[in-house]
């Protein structure tokens, strides 16, 4: 029986790894060609279709501020198991709303999972069990929207970039985004409220937060609207009740 090719030990392998030479032979085989162009196009088209479908679902989940509409009974319409995360749109049951039923509203939200995610319109979402940082006497904003993005905010363009944040269609809650160690507590409603208190924006009625980058470092850009006046801040992702980690002082948006 002849030998097909001379065995070649792969770099770094121990002689004890394989006495047969098969490993060397297998590792020495040429890599297959790159994915063929037709397949790249085919899969790209499929992914684009998935993205389009996801965008439709996300737009269905767009926010209606709580203050503008009738409040429904406080029954839990969402059973979002991981709603702790609540990345996009979570109407937080604020103290002010609890006190004033007539000022209540409807929050429309949906998970963007394409398969079996719960989708319901209406109702309020109570703070999730993971939002332990929400103290009983905290004045919670009427509506909080959180997203994760790759936007790189800069000091020079901060105002213009923060203004755009207000026009962005936020996607739907994604547990992974906030469970990720890359995001941290600031990605939860409770964590964000703690941060708002730390930067002096605890009285805001509407909050949009973008977990993105500021001057090249991971940050959260927050636009907090109080009495109709939006103010933009940039904070570190470690922002909490005791440490504001303020990267950009609050600036009123025109």
């Amino acid at each position: 029986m002849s030998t097909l090719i001379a065995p070649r030990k792969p770099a770094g392998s121990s002689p004890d790894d394989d006495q047969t030479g098969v490993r060397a032979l297998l590792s020495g085989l040429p890599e297959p060609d790159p994915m063929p162009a037709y397949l790249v196009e085919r899969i790209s088209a499929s992914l684009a279709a998935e993205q389009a479908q996801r965008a439709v679902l996300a737009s269905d989940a767009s926010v209606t501020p709580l203050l503008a509409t009738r409040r429904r009974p406080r029954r839990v319409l969402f059973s979002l198991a991981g709603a702790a995360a609540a990345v996009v749109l979570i109407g937080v049951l604020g103290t002010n709303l609890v006190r004033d039923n007539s000022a209540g509203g409807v929050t429309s939200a949906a998970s963007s999972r394409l398969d079996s995610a719960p989708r319901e319109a209406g109702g309020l979402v109570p703070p999730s069990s993971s939002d332990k940082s929400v103290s009983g006497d905290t004045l919670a904003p009427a509506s909080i929207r959180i997203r994760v993005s790759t936007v790189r905010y800069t000091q020079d363009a901060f105002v213009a970039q923060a203004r755009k944040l207000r026009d962005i269609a936020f996607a739907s809650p994604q547990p992974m985004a906030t469970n990720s160690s890359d995001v941290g507590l600031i990605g939860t409603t409770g964590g964000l409220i703690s941060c708002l208190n730390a930067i002096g924006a605890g009285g805001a009625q509407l909050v949009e937060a973008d977990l993105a980058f500021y001057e090249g470092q991971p940050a959260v850009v927050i636009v907090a609207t109080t009495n109709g006046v939006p103010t933009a801040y940039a904070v570190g992702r470690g922002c909490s009740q005791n440490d504001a980690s303020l990267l950009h002082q609050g600036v009123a948006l025109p």
Partner: protein
Amino acid sequence: MSRLDDLLELSDRELLSAHCAGDADAFGEIFRRHRDRMWAVALRTTRDPEMAADAVQEAFIAAFRRADSFRGDAAVTTWLHRIVVNSCLDRLRRIKPVVGLPDGDHGDLADRHDHHHSVDVRLDVQRALEQLPEGQRMALVLVDMHGLSVTEAASILDVAEGTVKSRCARGRAAMAPLLGLPAPAARPMSHPLKEPMAPS
């Protein structure tokens, strides 16, 4: 800095996180980064370009949809490998539920070709791999052909690291005589080709 430049600077994990949060471009970058690798894995697992194409397409769509199932306890690429391998194995099992070596057919591959002919070598390796049980074959594909660590392969195949090591050793021992390589001198493997199908 352009939008694409931004994406290029992000890690796989950050891209997946951005995708989960609704970023429309993040998963496209993940696909761009890993498509050739996943294609190679699919091709070597199925040994059929058409099946590999379908499997890898199905896998990327599944990854797109189930991105929020990624919990970060492994690398994104390991997670993608697992999805691709499972997609391939599902298809293989549908058409060919059992892979085994027919009795008395062990020794003829190596004698038929000039040993300097790389195409023949590749074909012989492929034929020899085809005769291994699925578990051994996948271990060799991932560890020996794709250079993954035993730990990564174990995670992808959802088995213990010791199982991967054992399957590699048995697979190599089984392939050696088929390829005209010397059988291992020490610790001869008994019935190296008789391992049952690996659990999925």
